[in-house]
């Protein structure tokens, strides 16, 4: 089952879970995904060892989509 998680003060929170064939679950995940992007989070998926990619649409076939905050130089 695929998961949309947000890194936060609890460690992380699972916002949605879905399988590609479950249209309702995908729809709910897409809604949660968009709400988090609107809140300023960036969504990232792993694309292989040592590689990741920011996504702006929920990839329904991804196993794990991680929401992160922007980083900045200190």
């Amino acid at each position, binding site marked *: 089952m695929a998961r949309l*998680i947000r*890194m*936060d*003060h*609890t*460690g*992380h929170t699972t916002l949605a879970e879905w399988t590609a064939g479950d249209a309702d679950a995908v729809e709910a995940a897409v809604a949660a995904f968009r709400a988090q992007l609107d809140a300023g989070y*960036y969504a*990232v998926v*792993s694309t292989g*060892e*040592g*590689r*990741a*990619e*920011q996504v702006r649409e929920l990839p329904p076939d991804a196993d794990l989509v*991680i929401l*992160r*905050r*922007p*980083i*900045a*130089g*200190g």
Partner: protein
Amino acid sequence: MAVLTETERVYWRPRVDARRLTVRGRTWTTTTVAHTVPFLGTAALLVGLEPLAAPVAAVAIVHAWVIPDLYARRGANVLKPKPRADEAAERTSIGLLGDLVGHAARSTAARTGLVIERGALGVWVVGEAGAVLVAPGGRRAFCFCVSVRDPQLPSGDRIAHLLLALREDEAGFATVANLAFSGARWRVRRRLAPALRPALDEAARLAA
């Protein structure tokens, strides 16, 4: 290739690449030499003119040592751990971080709290408040100050934020980050807490 979104906020900075990094490293070295040589020259001159001025010369030599050491300390601070969040959040965040890295990196993280990540520019040691890049060859270190601006995040999530950004776009990551120090790796190592040193040693081994 995807560009790290955060680079838009530092649009005036030229994008980092291996050549620019080398130039910045040399500039740091030149600056360090420029800070150090006048003190050493003064010490030599004092002793040459008046041997009894040796104590004053010794003070000048100490200055010549301390100035680069202070820079190295600033660089090492990017790997300094932050105060811990509550235990459950720490455990959860460490679990997620463990899922993101391979076995070897997980082992180093368990021992030191730092994550090692190979990149095109060298080998990175990622901490909570920045990352140290050990350049190919393993002798020079670049200390980058960069973090996520959320004081409530547990340690694993802080590192995971940086790790994911680094994996998205390594050059963009180095562009967004502020360079806190560049110089000999041993200088940074000396200023690290002993528990953190194995991570830098491992990065140097991989970069050699």
